[in-house]
């Protein structure tokens, strides 16, 4: 054959030894095998994913269009549950509480975590002990955390008022209407700051060292290095943390349930708490509960999408 052809023009078709339809059949078979293989690997997890996550999400949509509860009978009511949402007394309080909660806890968590991370990343020895201690509250189940804090916020013999008294102040009603939400937010900070601190430590350790050496040679102060190097380099990661921490903040529930039961009044009634009230109240207004859930789910989806879009921008950027 054309071993000595020096110039290879586009070869004419039709020299294949197998008929095109035979090639097509064999390719199709191979393709099919690959499809089966892929789905076989994916299927066990994907089935669980569909049954226990996708279908429940669709179920929420279904329930949100109905009235009634689990124990009784339900009927289709269209969009009524959504239309009624703004009229619900206390709905705005739940939304406000949730936002205020996130507004207090998220910045404290992230600023605190970043500060801890900056120190922790620099430390020369003993880092693992600090990491363990700082991470420990993250491992505490919400129920247990709330129990501990219930104990600490006790007006008469709790740790907090012990400190206040020791400083010569008057005992504070920590779980009263004025402070309960703040206490809940601080509890959240206590539980989450360690998580994000270690998250940031990992990010800081991953930053290119040469840049810092260069900056030091340029005579940049520690603050300048933070301001012009660390923070800009970690912009995406911080942004990621802000979004995720916010999404978590919007879901605050189990501590509110155990620590304050949503009270006093509506002071710590958050959105999910409100869902809970409707879902688990005696009349099982699952339709309303699902409508609220759905609004929350959509909010979270939007936040997720915004984040995906911006994180994708990173790849395009560099």
């Amino acid at each position, binding site marked *: 054959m054309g071993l000595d052809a020096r110039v290879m023009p586009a070869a004419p078709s039709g020299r294949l030894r197998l008929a095109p339809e035979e090639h097509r059949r064999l390719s199709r078979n191979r393709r099919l095998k690959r499809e089966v293989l892929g789905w076989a690997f994916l299927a066990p997890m994907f089935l669980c994913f569909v049954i226990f996550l996708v279908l429940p999400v669709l179920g929420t949509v279904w329930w949100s269009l109905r009235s009634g*509860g689990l124990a009784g009978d339900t009927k289709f009511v269209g969009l009524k549950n959504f239309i009624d949402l703004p009229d619900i007394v206390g709905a705005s309080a739940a939304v406000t509480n949730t936002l205020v909660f996130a507004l207090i806890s998220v910045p404290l968590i992230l600023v605190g975590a970043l500060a801890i991370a900056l120190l922790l990343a620099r430390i020369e020895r003993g880092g693992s002990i600090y990491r363990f201690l700082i991470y420990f509250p993250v491992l505490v189940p919400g129920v247990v955390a709330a129990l501990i804090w219930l104990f600490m916020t006790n007006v008469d013999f709790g740790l907090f008022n012990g400190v206040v008294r020791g400083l010569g102040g008057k005992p504070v009603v920590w*779980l009263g209407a004025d402070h309960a939400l703040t206490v809940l937010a601080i509890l959240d900070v206590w539980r989450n700051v360690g998580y994000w601190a270690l998250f940031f430590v990992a990010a800081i350790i991953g930053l290119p060292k040469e840049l810092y050496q260069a900056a030091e040679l340029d005579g940049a102060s520690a603050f300048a290095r933070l301001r012009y190097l660390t923070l800009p380099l970690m912009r995406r990661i911080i942004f990621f943390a802000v979004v995720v921490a916010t999404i978590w903040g919007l879901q605050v529930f189990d501590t509110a349930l155990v620590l304050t039961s949503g009270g006093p009044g509506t002071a710590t009634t958050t959105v999910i708490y409100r869902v809970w009230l409707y879902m688990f109240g*005696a009349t099982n207004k699952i339709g309303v509960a699902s409508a609220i859930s759905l609004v929350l789910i959509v909010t979270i989806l939007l936040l997720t999408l915004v984040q995906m879009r911006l994180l994708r921008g990173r790849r395009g950027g560099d």
Partner: protein
Amino acid sequence: MNQRIHRQISALSEAHHEARLSRRGFVMGLLQLGLSTAAVASIAAGFRPAYAAAKSLKGHVRFLVGPWSEGEVAHHKHIAEAFNVLHPDVTFDFRLYQWGTAAQEIGASVAGGGHDIYMTTESSYPDYQAGTRFADLTARINDPAFAAEKAKYLYWERTESYGPKLLGLPISWHVEDALFVNMDKVKEAGHDASFIDSWDGFVDCIAKMTKEGETYGLGIGIQLGGYGEWYQRLRSAGGSYLTPDLKKPNVNLPDVVKVTEQMADLFKRGIAPPLGTYGYDAAPAAFAAGKLAILSSDLAGTTVLPKKMPFDWKLLPYPPGPVSQVNFNDVTYYMVNAKSPDQDLMWEVISFWTNGANDAYWADNSGTYPARIDAPQNGYGTNAVPQLAEALPLFEKHAVGLENFPQWATVEGLAEAEIQNCYTGKSTPAEAVANVEKIVIHEVGL
């Protein structure tokens, strides 16, 4: 011999006649009947059950019950032991739900067939009435053979008012909010038990009992997001969530606003501790320690207090409102899961659990009032604090039940939170009352 056994024997002989039962089976059946009757007579001589099951029962019974006291499961096990004397082949399992999630836990369990017998409260009764998950016990309860027993239960008129079906046997009733009063401090303040007869006397007394940094006159709102406190003030002012025909809201009345202002004033004057100071767990201890001169709590509080208190105390109702003096109470039932395979067994069990002796025993140990008129003869009052029995006539006199609409409990939960907002100064009494009316309209769907 009891009618029930007669019926069992006649059923047996009929079955034999119709050749459904072999001769041997008939004899065995009679033998078992005889044995169990003998067992009733001899072994369980201590108490005399109103009736005893004749058929030899076998099976496993799963209870889902409310945690009335620390010893809840122990009390049930005690009753189960007595039951096993009669029917050794029946085994039991008791699981507690939590009050906060009671409706959901019950709803989930009954739909999934998780348990056989449920302890339910009146507030969710209308809801269950509308569904089909619980066994319809109407035929059994209204069976003429059960008539004499039925007559011994209290509150059938309330139960029957929710609808045609009867779903449960009542166990107990209890007062949602009573005043636990430190009488020593009342005396110190220059009052006696009659301070409760008027609102002014009440306020004067608790004001005088209040000592800054040491004692608050009245601890209310201890149940964060809880219920009952304001509801009885609403009723005492002539209001209710709905008018008796359930067609219109009946909340936003001048008198209702007035009693709400009165309540809010207690906080403004600092004679009631700010909400959040004492939780439901901590309040009884604070009362026992003298930090609260009066504690407003449900009767379950009596089981938490130490048996020996360092001062003299009483249970009293709230003072009268513009219209009447009321205390709000509700009833607790046993219901049977419609999915349970052996309905006869379940019926035997719940009727045994609510017979005079066992009802008396359970209520006495749970700090509630029994739903049986024969409870006192069966030893009620020997375990509970004496204050409970002492206050019974008073509470009976002023008792009002909840209203007959399925959304009652949801309305109550949301309304009480709005009222607490006004106690903490986040809204005015007028706004709070108006909000409650809005809640009623929305939740009931008027």
